[in-house]
């Protein structure tokens, strides 16, 4: 428990301003702006191909943007702003080392877990804090064991990912993301690759995180979970944000016809 307590006090303000992104002629994000307050839990909903995963991935520079910018606690993702005496200054592309450093403020949990299959559960978690020289190996191991206990997998520390169920793998992946003590956690359809009976155990872990005050941005199809856990829901379609509001507003009383249409199909 103590391992995660600090996250309640850290900030985690995400600002997305006028972001556009195209693949060839296909525009996946069109002039998207969104501010996510520290500690807020935001769910992004939308039909498949609407750009919701792309939007999520721009937050830690796994996708670059064509126009606009993204910042976390005021520091730009992927660029550095250097002001000049006269004029607004210039944006300098960051070196890889800097990008990696800023990335560690943002944890990502993937749809397909992406655990390292040749490392055990505990080795998966230890890897980043040790490689980034944040912790010594014994300290990192202690942290990892604590995190595994936190997600209910203390007895699986030395299991390889292939020896775990999908739900267990995803919980290890969440523990791995937490090991760097990120200010913001991104969930990219964390339960979409799971058997229905395993979804609950992963949602339970995310629910606990939501209570602890880390900023969470979640892309999911689990509407019931979104309603329960989110402070705000963002509905996106064809790269446009069509609607944002509390779960009661967006899910209970959708204003945009396409949101209504989507919810009618989903429910």
């Amino acid at each position, binding site marked *: 428990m103590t391992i995660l307590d600090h996250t309640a006090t850290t900030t985690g303000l995400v600002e997305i301003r006028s972001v556009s992104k195209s693949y060839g002629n296909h525009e996946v994000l069109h002039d998207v702006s969104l501010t996510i307050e520290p500690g807020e839990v935001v769910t992004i909903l939308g039909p498949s191909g609407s750009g919701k995963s792309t939007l999520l991935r721009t937050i830690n520079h796994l996708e670059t943007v064509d126009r606009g910018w993204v910042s976390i606690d005021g520091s730009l993702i992927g660029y550095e702003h250097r002001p000049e005496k006269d004029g607004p200054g210039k944006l300098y592309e960051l070196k890889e080392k800097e990008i990696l450093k800023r990335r560690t403020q943002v*944890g*990502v949990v993937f749809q397909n877990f992406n655990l390292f*299959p040749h490392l055990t559960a505990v080795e998966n978690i230890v890897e980043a804090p040790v*490689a980034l020289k944040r912790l010594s190996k014994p300290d990192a191991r202690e942290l990892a064991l604590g995190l595994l206990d936190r997600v209910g997998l203390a007895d699986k520390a030395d299991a390889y990912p292939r020896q775990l169920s999908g739900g267990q793998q995803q919980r290890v992946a969440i523990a791995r993301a937490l090991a*760097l003590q990120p200010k913001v956690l991104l969930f990219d359809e964390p339960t979409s690759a799971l058997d229905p009976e395993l979804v609950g155990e992963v949602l339970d872990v995310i629910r606990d995180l939501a209570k602890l005050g880390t900023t969470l941005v979640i892309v999911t199809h689990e509407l019931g979970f979104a309603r329960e856990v989110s402070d705000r829901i963002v509905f996106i379609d064809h790269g446009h944000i069509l609607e944002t509001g509390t779960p009661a507003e967006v899910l209970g009383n959708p204003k945009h016809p396409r949101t209504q249409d989507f919810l009618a199909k989903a429910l």
Partner: protein
Amino acid sequence: MTSVIGRTGSPTTASAPPLEHAEPKAPIDFGALTVVPTRHWARWILGALVVFVVAQLVFSLFTEPGYHWEVFAKYFFAPAILRGLGLTLLLTVVAGSIGFVAGGVLALMRLSKSPLLSSFAWAFIWFFRSIPLLVQVIVWFNLGYLYPTIGLGIPFTTEYFVEFQTVSLISAFAAAVLGLALHQAAYSAEIIRGGILSVDAGQLEAAAALGLPAHVRVFRIILPQAARSILPNAFNEIIGLLKGTSIVSVIALSEVFYVTQVIYNRNHMVIPMLIVAVVWYTILTTVLSIAQFYIERHFARGSVRVLPPTPIQRARSWVRTQWDRLDDAPAKEVRS
């Protein structure tokens, strides 16, 4: 089938109508019946044929005087042969190490986002895969005709600070190493690149998302996973290289095959001397194959739920089973 098995497992016949109060036949316990195995006649005939051919061959090994086993025995551990063997191993290790390290660098260059690096690597691989190894070794050996001297100096001029005679710089050994290593680099580059491409893109993404530095991503995350598909091909290449060293006998480098040739030119015992080389190559290849088994097993961690037993573990378990059978019946099946 003469009878139809009913749902209850008791045989019924079509002609006998079921009677209300008929005595039901006792159900047959199929588990207790004797099983008659299928006879594989074709398999047995072919098997007999194979046994005959092998027996004939072994018989001729002992009876055919042309083998001259006494000559084989005399030269198998001869100092000249062992020295040749040492050189063969040295060439394999040196050229193999340079080849695989250079191949790894070339593979990373080909995967680089820089078009210049990637085209250079492509061109290198294209060029050195195009030239037969034999031709390449002879070209390196004769480089002195093209560039009589090699030196360090001001680029694009003939001003040298230091200058060497090519002939003295590129000895037969250096020519052999150059030829074998460059040839090996071109082939292993493609093998390593294939291995890297076989790793799921999500792995690189997850490593990047964790902020892992480039060298950690390559050496801790990507290469250990790529090793699974690199290793079988890499061992093919190392074994190929070991045998390929016999090519450098054309530039009179006294590796094991050259030494056997020198000896049979003198004593005219061609076949016995060739068998000396054949047996030594076979022994070295066997050692490499055993090493391959254990190294592949090491890198299989995490990709199989349970590692397969090693041949030694399997042999031990077999002996244990047989031992138990001697003692008390019925035998306990020992599985590992």
